Structures are given as C-alpha cells and as structure tokens.
C-alpha cells in the first residue's frame, strides 16, 4: 500500500514537471502585461453555471461577443459556486494578469468585493449586485439593466394576445387572468412581474394576475408544476422569471400562450411561445472593458436601457401574437425612450386601494431591510435609478400572490 502512494506521488511529480515545462510559455505571454494595448489586455469572467443554463449562456454569449469586438484576450471560468470558490477564482484570474474581472450571479457579490479589496489595481464588475454604491471601492462596480421596460413591452404583447382571445370569444374580459411563475419574492422578481402586468393592463384593462414562487432560480419540475397550477386556476397566459424550460413546456402541452425570459423558446414551443425579453450584457461588457483599457473610471452603478441596447425583445412569434403587436410594441418603445411613458407611473396602479405619493425603498442593502430612499419622483416610481439593481417591492392591486414562502 505504501508503494501505491509512492507511485502516485512520483506520478504526480513527473506530470508536475510536464506542467512546469508548459508554464514557461504562459509567463512569457505575461511579461508585457503592464501596458494596456488591446493585445495585452486580459478579461476574466466568472460564471455560476455553464452554457447549459440559459441564464449563464446569455452572459457567456455577451462575453464572447464583447471581447471579440474589442479584440481582447479573455478567460471564462464556469461552474463557480457562490462561496469562497468565487474569491479564489477571482484571485486566480487576477494572478493570471486579468485587468478586469466580471461575475454574473447575485451570490458572487461579497466575494467579488473581498477580491476588489485585495487587488486594488484590478477592476471588478458584478452584474445584478446591490452594494457597489455603499462599499465606496473605486475598483468595484455593479451593473443591471432596466429590464422592467423590456418586461413592460412583453406585457404589451401579452395584453394584445388577451384582447384577441377575448374578441374571439374564448373567455370573457373579466376572466383575462395572467399567471406568473417567479423564483423568489425578491425585488428583481417583483419588479419584473409588476412591470409585465402593467404592460399587459395598459392594453387590456381588465387583466389580473396570479403569481406563484418556486424558491429556486432553476427547478424544472417546480416551474412546470407552478405553471400547471396557474393554468388550472384559470390563467389564460403564462410568463415566468426562472431559468428552466419548465413553464414554457407546460404551456405548450396545455396550449396556453407563454411569454418566456432570457431568450426565445420558439424552437421547443412553436405553438405557444409569444415573445421573450432579455438583458443583453454585451453593451455593458464593452463599456466597462473600454473604460478599463483607457484608464477611465467605471460607474459604480451602470444601468443599461433600451437605448444602450441592453434591454432587448427577442423574436415575436407571428403565429401566436395578435395582429398589430409589433406596431404596439414599437409605439410603446418610442414613448418609453422619449420619457413620455413611465413603467411605474403612479397613476396606473394602486397599492391597497391608494395611489402612491411617497414610497421609501430599501436601496442601501442592510440586514434589517431598512427603507432608506424616496423612490417616487415626478409621479412615478424611479426604478433602477438610485442603484442599478431593481428595488421595486410593492404589492400592487390586481396581482394575487398564491404563496410567499420564498
């Protein structure tokens, strides 16, 4: 038995020699790291899962696109859990000469902050995080996009579809109920389903909504069962904020129109897929990498918009969508961009029967969820303004939460 370990050890040593031999090439590349030409500039990406997750695939595609456009060298590390491994990977990427490092999952944030403190010369950018504006580190940044605008526009398509179904006599106007499968009762999800609902109600005034939560960002079975439950409850159209194909396939089986998230599901669900909204991260990646290359400061909070190309709608399915949907979306898009229309316009919704005139939001993250910032500006709730990540957490009338365990 001792020999086995001796053998193992010697094998490890021999192969280690091989590894060391190879390593010299690497360090040659690394010698001229200090100047910031595109050729010597290195970008690192930390991803929670790999390309099998739609969420991460969206980031991976954007990362490749941005780096190829800018012609910079990049490394993508996948399957990094939201724990110490994230710090280790960030530090390893910094060791390997990366000038800027991105992470894609909410739970990576604290470990990225830790790495930002330990590597002051490297820029750390974290998508979906909430703490950059309170941490005050010059090399740590958050980013998000005004995806609530994309949800709103997808909601317009959904409302048009409901109107069409009502006009066809499939159900009465009062039965126009939307179902929504959410992950957690998190601000990002609440902001998402509320904006979707407001979009739908802007064209179909009798619309109501039921929301169920799965307690996971990716749980195919729970999402499928959630969608089935909503359909049985009489929901005529389904949307989701969770990453699996559970809800779309349940809709395809039941023949219920579906608005998906993070990319088209048309291939798998040709008869029910309506439209999808997603965040395109490439504009942010390009912005941040360019800024880092030029030595410019990167915003602590960067919010992508329709104008920056960060909020996109994918592939309206003409076979399912109601007539005139594309025009209605184009119209609403123009109004959103001009500032004529606000998604969370206080005149379009009530909370407990009251129109809002003031709402304190929990913008500065703390363990007690202390509301700290007045979010109502000029008669609308200013989402993603005081920080990039969403903070709309109100329960508006017309939306029923079936469960709130998560």
């Amino acid at each position, binding site marked *: 038995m001792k020999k086995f370990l001796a053998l193992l050890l010697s094998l490890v040593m021999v192969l280690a020699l091989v590894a060391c031999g190879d390593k010299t090439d690497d360090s040659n590349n690394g010698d001229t790291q200090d100047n910031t030409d595109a050729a010597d500039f290195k970008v690192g990406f930390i991803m929670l899962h790999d390309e099998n997750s739609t969420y991460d695939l969206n980031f991976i595609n954007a990362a490749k696109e941005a780096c190829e456009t800018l012609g910079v060298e990049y490394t993508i590390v996948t399957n990094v859990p939201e724990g110490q491994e994230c710090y*280790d990977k960030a530090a390893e990427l910094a060791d390997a000469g990366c000038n800027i490092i991105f992470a894609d999952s909410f739970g990576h944030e604290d470990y990225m902050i830790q790495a930002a403190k330990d590597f002051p010369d490297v820029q750390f950018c974290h998508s979906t995080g909430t703490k950059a504006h309170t941490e005050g580190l010059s090399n740590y940044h958050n980013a998000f996009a005004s995806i609530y605008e994309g949800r709103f526009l997808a909601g317009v398509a959904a409302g048009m579809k409901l109107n069409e179904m009502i006009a066809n006599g499939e159900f009465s106007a009062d039965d126009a109920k939307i179902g929504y499968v959410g992950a*957690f009762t998190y601000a990002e999800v609440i902001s998402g389903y509320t904006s979707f609902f407001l979009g739908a109600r802007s064209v179909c005034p009798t619309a109501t909504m039921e929301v169920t939560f799965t307690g996971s960002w990716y749980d195919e079975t729970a999402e499928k069962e959630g969608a089935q439950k909503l359909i049985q409850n009489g929901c005529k159209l389904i949307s989701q904020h969770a990453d699996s194909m559970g809800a779309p396939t349940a809709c395809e089986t039941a023949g219920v129109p579906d608005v998906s998230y993070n990319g088209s599901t048309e291939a798998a669900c040709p008869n029910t897929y309506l439209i999808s909204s997603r965040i395109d991260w490439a504009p942010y990646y390009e912005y941040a990498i360019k800024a880092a290359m030029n030595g410019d400061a990167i915003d602590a909070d960067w919010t992508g918009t329709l104008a920056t190309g960060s909020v996109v709608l994918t592939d309206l399915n003409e076979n399912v969508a109601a007539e005139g949907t594309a025009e209605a979306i184009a119209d609403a898009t123009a109004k959103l961009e001009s500032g004529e229309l606000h998604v969370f316009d206080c005149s379009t919704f009530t909370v407990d029967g009251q129109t809002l005139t003031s709402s304190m939001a929990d913008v500065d993250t703390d363990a007690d969820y202390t509301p700290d910032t007045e979010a109502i500006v000029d008669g609308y709730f200013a989402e993603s303004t005081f920080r990039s990540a969403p903070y709309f957490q109100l329960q508006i009338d017309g939306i029923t939460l079936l469960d709130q365990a998560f």
Partner: protein
Amino acid sequence: MNKKQSLFHIAKRDTLPWYKAVLIRGGAIVLALIVCAIVTTLLTGENPIKVYSTILYGAFGTSRKSWVTFHNLAILLGISLAVTPAFKMRFWNIGAEGQVLIGCLATAACMICLGGKIPNGLLIVIMIVASVAAGALWGFLPGIFKAKWNTNETLFTLMMNYIATQLAAFFIIVWEVPKGSGKIGIINQNTEAGWLPVLGGQRYLLPILLVAILTGVMYIYLNYSKHGYEIAVVGESQRTASYAGIKVERVIVRTMILSGAICGLIGLLLTAGTDHTLTTTIVGGRGFTAVMVSWMAKFNPIMMIFTSLLIVVLSRGASEISSVFGLNHSFADILTGIILFFIIGSEFFITYKVSLRKGKKEA
C-alpha cells in the same frame, strides 16, 4: 470444480508480494491515462499530454492554486476521516453531507445571532461547541436508533441529510440579505466577528494544520487505542464483540457521535474559516465523495491523504481544463470517471487471480 467450465478461472489470492501489487496499481493508472488520452483525442482533438499538464497546472500552477488545492484536500480529507471510524465498524454512514451542513448551520447561527454582542474569543469558543454538538447530534440519532432498534443506518443517515438541507434552506430565508434574495452573503464582512483567525497571513493554513493533526490522531485512534480495537472487532462481527465483552451498542453510539462531531468541526472550518456564509450547497457533495476516499484508502487515514489528493487534483484540474480548452465541465468529469474506474477496478485484480483455463484441470 467439476461444474461447467468458463473461459476464465477466478480465485482469491493470497497476499500479493508488494511489487506485484504496485505493478497492478501502476499499470491501472497508466492504462487509465492511455484510455483518457484516446478519449480526449477522439472527442475533442486536443493533445492529451497538454490536457494532463493543464490539470496539474490547475491544481499546482501558482502558489495560490496550490494553497486552494491543499485547502480542498484538507476539507475532503477531514470529512473522509470523520466517516472512517463508522465504516470500519461496518456502519454505513452516508450522512456526512448533512452532518457537515448542520455544523455549518450551527456556526452561521452563532455568527449571525451573537456576532458583535460578545467578545470574539468567547464567540469562537461557542461556535466550536455548537458546531461539534450539532454534528454529533446528527451522528448520534442514527447511531442510537441502530443500537436500540437496529434501524437501517444507510436510509437513516441519508434522510438526515435532507433534514439538514431543509433546515439550512429555512434559515437562509430567515437570514437572507437583501429580502427575497435567498442568499445570506458573507456574514459579518465588516466586523469579521466569529471569523477564525488567519495564521501567518494565509487563510487556508489553519484548516490545513487542523486536518493534518486530525489525520495523525485518527491514525493512532484507529490503530493503537482500545476504542479503535473495539471498532475493528464490532466491524468484523458483532457477536464476537459481544462474547469478548464489548458493549456493542455503546461502541456504535460512541463512534457515530465521534463521526458526526468531526463532520461538525469541518462545517465550522468551512463557514467560519473560509466561506463565511451558509448555502445549502456549501458542502458540495464532499460528504459523499468522502465515502469513496475512505473506501479507496481501505480506511487507512494516511492512505486517505493520497486518495483525496487524487480526487481534489482531478476536480481542480477539471475546472482549469474547461476554461483553458473551452470544453464543458462534464468532459473533465468523464476523465475523472475513467481514472477512478481503473483505480477501483485494479483492486479486483489484487484481491483475485484470474487465469485462462487450460485444457487440463488443475484440481
């Protein structure tokens, strides 16, 4: 021996001379590497030697990589040491995952509820007691049920894993920041209350040292202590143990408490030592991998250093391969699977002799 003859004759071997055992094991590893090389070339077109060197680079390429590798080794080895006394007693404790997690939960609870309210030294003492006690409880329950009512310990320990996971999930929702996110984040990031001290500027040194000591202690405990002897006898035959005057029930319960307590301690090292958070996946399946580590090393703590090193190097290398070659993580898992298959398979040829049948019977 006058039944129908198969092509191969399989017989149990006497103890092999050491050089033969080494030859078989070495051959298995070489074969595994060759098969991996063929698979790599066929499936990806990459140069297998480069892939192997990338694996090693991923594990030991820089001093940071080496520290992380040795830390991962320490955690996996620690859990493997924890399950070993139970296995030696032929008590199939597959609940290490839950026993570690409950230790993490107890640690996190102390850090969140008491952090900043009591002196840090006292807090750490309370955390140690709490995590060890929580782990011990998770070991004690299946132990006492086995001893008193002969329940199936495999199912029992397995189910305790789910209870621990659900408890952790519940408390994560209670302590989540910000609301609804389902994440705790780093606990006491600014005050560092309840964080285990960093030795010599290297945060991974403390867990590595502790597990190194634990390995030595466990080796002595299993091989040279009265308890260790009792565990071995109970493992061989409970009846023999009873006749010899060993209180079997007591040994079972005591060993499981020990097993769980060490798991709880590893939970402390994870939550208070490095990760400073609690997630349901913080143990990351290592509670189950430890079973394999322990078995492959035939319950010898010193051998476990090498079996866990093998697994840790492979998994660290796996992540390096996937980012360097742009291959999916699963490809590295395939290579790991092939290597483990050959290593475990080689044990068969060490225990049994396989010969082709000749025309004549040899009796």
